[in-house]
């Protein structure tokens, strides 16, 4: 390796690309931000100049009304930043527009994954492994107990519960960006053509996905549904709405939740979930370890999540690794 990678510095509030004076997914407003994807713990408002994929910029625009200056960067496009730093945005397979960011400086290559998964997702471009010296990976599900089953199995459990309870509805808690649209797209792919009813907070994001050519079929608002119309239907809402007043309008809802955390029974029970659906937009343990092995970096840096176990795995497999202590990333609802 050429240098000591002093040009890239993990700070508590984000990853600082020193020569470019830019930050990746900073947790507080900065002058120049490179944003991997639109989830609120990665994309925050108030930055001076934002570099991101066009989809991520659109999502941020929807949420924060746009930054002072925006530079859309297409997948695969290599852009020059200050101080001899080049950045390339590569699909991460997490949500619409999500990217890993490859940074190059003085012959050294660093990849920041943001959040990613390897399973197929009809709503976004698939993850592409990129050769690098340092691979900065997320570790949300960095424990070997997390193994996400094939999504078709979970979709079948959802439609099965619906068929078995014709007078009730299944209310699925799902993150408003990414999870909800993926769930809908997978239901459509499985041949489910009935209207799907949405909480109001889901509507604009679903429309944005449709604008980017992702067909989600017949979507309606719960608020517009006449009494009785929800029996035997699927309702999708943010997880926080399910145990709250909003859910009182639903006909005897079966509370479901689409999340990687649903793998653990107690986590599901704590949230009063009756139908846990193990559907995640993050890499599970096998995907994380397989990706590190495939990318085969000189060194792996591990961030936000359960770093310890992945660190241990790297150790057991004679891979150089360190855990970063970044703050502010907590994707409890995934």
């Amino acid at each position: 390796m050429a240098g000591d990678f002093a040009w890239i510095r993990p700070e508590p509030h984000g990853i600082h690309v020193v020569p470019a004076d830019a930050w990746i997914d900073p947790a507080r407003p900065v002058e120049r931000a490179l944003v991997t994807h639109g989830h609120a713990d990665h994309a925050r408002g108030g930055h001076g100049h934002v570099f991101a994929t066009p989809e991520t910029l659109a999502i941020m625009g929807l949420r924060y009304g746009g930054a002072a200056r925006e530079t859309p960067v297409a997948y695969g496009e290599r852009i020059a930043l200050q101080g001899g730093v080049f950045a390339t945005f590569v699909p991460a397979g997490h949500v619409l527009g999500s990217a890993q960011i490859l940074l190059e400086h003085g012959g050294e290559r660093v990849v920041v994954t943001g959040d990613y998964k390897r399973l197929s997702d009809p709503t976004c471009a698939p993850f592409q492994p990129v050769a690098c010296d340092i691979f900065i990976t997320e570790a949300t599900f960095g424990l070997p107990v997390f193994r996400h089953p094939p999504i078709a199995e979970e979709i079948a459990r959802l439609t099965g519960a619906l068929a078995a309870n014709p007078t009730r509805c299944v209310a699925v808690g799902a993150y408003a960006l990414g999870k909800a649209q993926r769930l809908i797209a997978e239901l459509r792919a499985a041949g489910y053509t009935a209207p799907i009813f949405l909480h109001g907070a889901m509507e604009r994001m679903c429309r944005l996905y449709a604008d980017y050519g992702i067909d989600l079929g017949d979507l309606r608002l719960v608020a517009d549904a006449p009494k009785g119309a929800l029996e035997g239907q699927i309702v999708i809402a943010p997880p926080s709405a399910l145990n709250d007043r909003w859910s009182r309008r639903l006909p005897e809802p079966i509370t479901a939740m689409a999340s990687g955390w649903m793998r653990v029974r107690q986590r599901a029970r704590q949230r009063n979930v009756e139908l846990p659906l193990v559907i995640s937009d993050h890499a599970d343990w096998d995907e994380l370890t397989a990706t590190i092995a495939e990318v085969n970096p000189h060194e792996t840096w591990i961030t936000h999540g359960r770093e310890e176990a992945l660190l241990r795995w790297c150790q057991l497999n004679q891979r150089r690794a360190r855990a970063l202590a970044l703050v502010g990333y907590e994707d409890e609802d995934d």
Partner: protein
Amino acid sequence: MERFAALIDALVYTRSRNGKLALIAQYLRETPDPDRGWALAALTDGLDFPAVKAGTVRALMETRVDEVLWTLSRDYVGDTAETASLLWPEPPNEQAPPPSVSEVVALLHHATRATAPTLLAGLLDRLDANGRYALLKLATGAMRIGISARLAKVAFAQAFDVSVDEVEEYWHGQAAPYLPLFDWAAGKAEPPRTDLLPLFRPFMLAHPLEDGADVSLADYAAEWKWDGIRVQLVHVNGESRVYSRSGDDISGSFPEIAAALQIPAVLDGELLVRGDHQGGAEGGAASFNALQQRLGRKAPSARMLADYPAFVRLYDVLIDGGEDVRDQAWEQRRARLEALVPRLDPLRFDLSQVIDAADMDALAQIRSLARDAAIEGVMLKRRTSPYVAGRRTGLWYKWKRDPLLVDCVLMYAQRGSGKRSSFHSDFTFGCWDGDPDAGAELLPVGKAYFGFTDTELKWLDSWVRQHTIARFGPVRETDKSLVFEVAFDSVHASRRHKSGVAMRFPRISRIRADKPAHEADRLATLKAMIADPAPVGGKT
């Protein structure tokens, strides 16, 4: 095993009692013998394989998974069986089909500590994650999925449309996989014989006496309702048992009682602890608080036995010298009981006295004057009533003492579960530890989740939402401005609570939105209500 695993999985996520009953009933109807019997035993913690314990599972996992990864995973998941079920590596080669429940039980029954790990590994290889979870729960005998023995019996009765009282009665003589029980329920066989075994018989229970009920002491006898735990004592063929209200065998917790019963009989009574250690008179009953020292102790020490000696105050006789007298009138049974008591050890047994009152008004006065901490109220028993299982209208009534009242301030509210999952319905309230105008603080004194109507619940929920000052997960801290009138049966000194008091059966009696918080009661008021530890005897 897959069907059983699916049942366990569904039960874990089903909160409503009816939902659980329906799931178990369906399983029992659709599953063949003997699988369903073994499953039933597993659900009610009735299976024990001495060679397989949680330690066996841990040791096995450490041969398959890195120790650090195991520990990190176990810490996160919080349950050994579940962690192991998720971490077990899928075998690379083709496996035999999943085992049946009976096959698993047969294998585990013959396991030794030496063979258990290999055996378990072979079974785990043949199952998926859900199956592995069910297997490990069954093997280690720690289901803990909220299925009581009673719930399982009700489900059994529901599955085959038989009476739960009969199920309760026949169940106790049976061992898993309960084939005679299933045959009887299906109408294929006579009920199993129960007269030669030390079995539990279902209790007769009472309805609360409503205002204006047409009850006259000409037809009803009055007795004290003692504040201990209701027990059934059984002695047959030289064996004695003490059963709790739920039919659990608690002989081990009260060995002095089991040992003292030496005549063939089935008796109904109240288990109490003598109060003399608290400074009371010899022979008196201490408060429920004293009894609590003994409850839940599976094998009490000699010290516990000496400090908190138990005795049973007898109410009724079900079987007398082998003769089932449950069909006889209460008056006849009472005569038999009175004749029987002198043959019992007076240290361990006495008779619950009938209260001598001219009429209901006189009884009401006697009831209101009763200050004994061990008295919960009075019972009214129809003189002609047989001893029948469960609650029957018009036969037995309980007439509790008027509750005590105190004004408390709402401090925290927690969202409920099931139908109440969107409502803040669990309320923690406190009293002032001094003069609130001189800087006194509120200390939590109790928690209640009933006593209000559905309309009041909605009002309370929205009040809590508007007066939240902090949130801790499902719990909200309120601005401490709402006063509740809290009703409770009694209050006791408690070292476990910061306030130093513990209430029995607290419930919200009235919402006092009109009352300013600083006018709520002080802790000293509540402490003054601590039940007088000096007991009185069984007489009025």
